[in-house]
């Protein structure tokens, strides 16, 4: 007998990625030979390579997760649903380092390899994870001629009002990071965007093998094996970044995570983090990252913003602020500019130009994912709040943070 396991309800191998939020899956008998009853009990378990990820299961949309699940599966080929999630605290380090196995008795009747893919602290990545990320990013940029040019053009002084100084600061950047991450995953599906936890020392980020070491004038140096040595944006060769702090320590004067999460239990209070720590993290350097028009030229920008988004995710979990219908989850008022209200579509993914929108909309629609359908190709602000599908399972955006469990 054989069964087929579909992860994220897809037979496509590129959909075999899970995070902390449960992924809908299904199992069906594809070859019933040997079966003697109309239904067989199939036990589903996960096995991990040493140091790899781990998964847990449940049979319905709610209830506790367990290490294994026994599912009665009809031999007539009808699919049976179940759910898989990464075991919190056990993310993968490589694609396919977890195998989901299906057995009848002791006989293996089907298996698939999956990855528990979550966003991790960049300072703690192992060399393989770091190198895959750097390589994918260098290829996305392709010395300034690649798809990354669109991401630079999305974050400029002209487009800034779409993304800054108003309530959609956090949702806009969540969509922006997700778009970039999906493009990186199209190059290497095992990659996720790491975050720079700027309230802690992160010496492993500022090395020749990762995001480079700044010399005294702020020109960033890379090792000969680091593909970021070929970085080029807008005709500018290399990266300029001059830290005003020792990179063995955290920048001074930034709100800590605890202080940021304590800004208040309403989004309106929390979003003031756009100034400190967000703005202060940018200006703890000289160089591209410290000015709006040039900030996105530096790959560190995306790690900085990934941490900003992580802080929002942790704040959302702390106060249960995933539901757009709850007033405390967002800052809505009649004077809010277009692009910053919950039902507004966001530029540039909506393709709207002119008027209160910028004159061009680079990059087209938001990249699709083989694992999830949200937030859609032209997301509204409201689509970016329930990122784990806590309120509505179909809102799951397909990313998680290593330290923000499923709510």
């Amino acid at each position, binding site marked *: 007998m054989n069964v087929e396991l579909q992860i994220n309800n897809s037979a496509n191998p590129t959909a075999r990625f899970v995070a902390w939020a449960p992924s809908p899956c299904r199992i069906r008998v594809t070859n019933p030979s040997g079966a003697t009853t109309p239904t067989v009990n199939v036990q589903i378990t996960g096995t991990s390579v040493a140091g790899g990820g781990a998964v847990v299961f449940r049979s319905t949309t709610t209830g506790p997760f367990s290490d294994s699940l026994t599912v009665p599966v009809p031999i007539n080929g009808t699919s049976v649903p179940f759910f898989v999630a990464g075991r919190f605290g056990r993310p993968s380090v490589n694609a396919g380092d977890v195998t989901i196995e299906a057995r009848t008795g002791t006989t293996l009747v089907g298996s698939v390899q999956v990855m528990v893919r979550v966003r991790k602290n960049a300072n703690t990545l192992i060399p393989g994870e770091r190198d895959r990320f750097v390589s994918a990013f260098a290829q996305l940029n392709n010395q300034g001629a690649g798809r990354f040019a669109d991401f630079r053009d999305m974050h400029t002084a002209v487009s800034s009002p779409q993304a800054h100084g108003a309530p959609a600061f956090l949702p806009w950047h969540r969509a922006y990071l997700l778009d970039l991450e999906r493009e990186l995953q199209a190059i290497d599906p095992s990659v996720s965007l790491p975050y720079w936890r700027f309230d802690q020392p992160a010496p492993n980020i500022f090395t020749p093998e990762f995001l480079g070491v700044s010399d005294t004038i702020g020109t960033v140096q890379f*090792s*000969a*094996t680091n*593909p970021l040595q*070929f970085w080029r944006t807008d005709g*500018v*060769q290399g990266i300029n970044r001059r830290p005003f702090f020792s990179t063995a320590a955290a920048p001074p004067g930034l709100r800590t995570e605890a202080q940021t999460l304590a*800004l208040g239990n309403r989004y309106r209070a929390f979003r003031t983090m756009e100034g400190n720590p967000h703005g202060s993290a940018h200006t703890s350097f000289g160089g591209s990252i410290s*000015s709006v028009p040039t900030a996105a030229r530096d790959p560190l920008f995306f790690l900085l913003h990934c941490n900003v988004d992580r802080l929002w995710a942790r704040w959302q979990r702390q106060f249960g602020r995933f539901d757009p219908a709850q007033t405390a989850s967002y800052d809505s008022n009649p004077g809010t500019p277009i692009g910053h209200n919950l039902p507004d579509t966001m530029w540039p993914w909506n393709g709207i130009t002119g008027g209160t929108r910028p004159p061009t909309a680079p990059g087209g629609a938001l990249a699709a994912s083989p694992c999830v359908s949200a937030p859609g190709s032209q997301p509204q602000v409201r689509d970016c709040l329930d990122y784990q599908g806590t309120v509505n399972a179909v809102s799951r955006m397909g990313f998680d943070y290593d330290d923000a469990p499923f709510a």
Partner: protein
Amino acid sequence: MAEQRKAAQRSTAAGKPKRPAQRSARSALLIATDAKKTVKQRVAAMAEAPLAVCENDANLQAMLKVLRDNEEPVEVRLAALQALQAASFSVVAFASCRGDYIATLRAVVEDANPELRQRVLGILAREKDGFAQQKLLEGLQDPAKALVPPEKALQLLSYDVHADAYPVARAIVSQPPNATARREALRLLAADASSAPLFEKILRDKDEAPEVRQISAAVLQATRPETLQAHAREMLLDPSEQDEMQAVSLTALAQFGNAAALANDAALLHRIDQLSGEQSTRVQQSARQFLSKYGR
């Protein structure tokens, strides 16, 4: 500009509720701009002040005054600059402050403090400010007028290269005041298509420092990728080539090469197989990565 600011003030006064974070930013700004407080208190307060900078003209002018005033402790002036920069990230709110901000930055580019000069020129250069670009260029042409060292001036000019910077950059490549200035002149010339032969020459010159050869490889990969790929292949096949440049060549081929052509290049694969057993960890690591990618 003043009209815009007044409109912004009216909007603020028009009954938006006072939020705790804004109240705390206003208090911080008062401390930050109060010369009677200690330097430590003022620097710490500057970090919390950005939210209040553009709330009204008085706040903005108080911050700009600190930045301009050379009687103020430089730590406080640098912190004020950082706070203004952080405030500038809220582009809409900052729009009404921007004119006075840029004017103040221009006013302090010749400040006695070199760190302040450098930071201010950096901000203006990233804004493609013509005034700052002119000052930087004049300093390169006449060292008596230099506001920052030549290497820094070249680096800042590279944010928005104009052809009038090329002659001075070429002159510095030929007769550099120091190695860093030469490197920055080369980075600036990366935008100049006519400099490709110079980069090819440096790339293949084993007497050049690996750092400038590495830059030359990066520039050529961006501007003439086929040329760089051909040089990288030759450099790998050359047993007398520097380890560092063999690692650079391997990285260029592995990342940006033509996969089909590389996988069928028997001589190259044989050579990389040899390199995978080399003493140099850097070369060994790159060679192994290359071979794992191209199926050997």
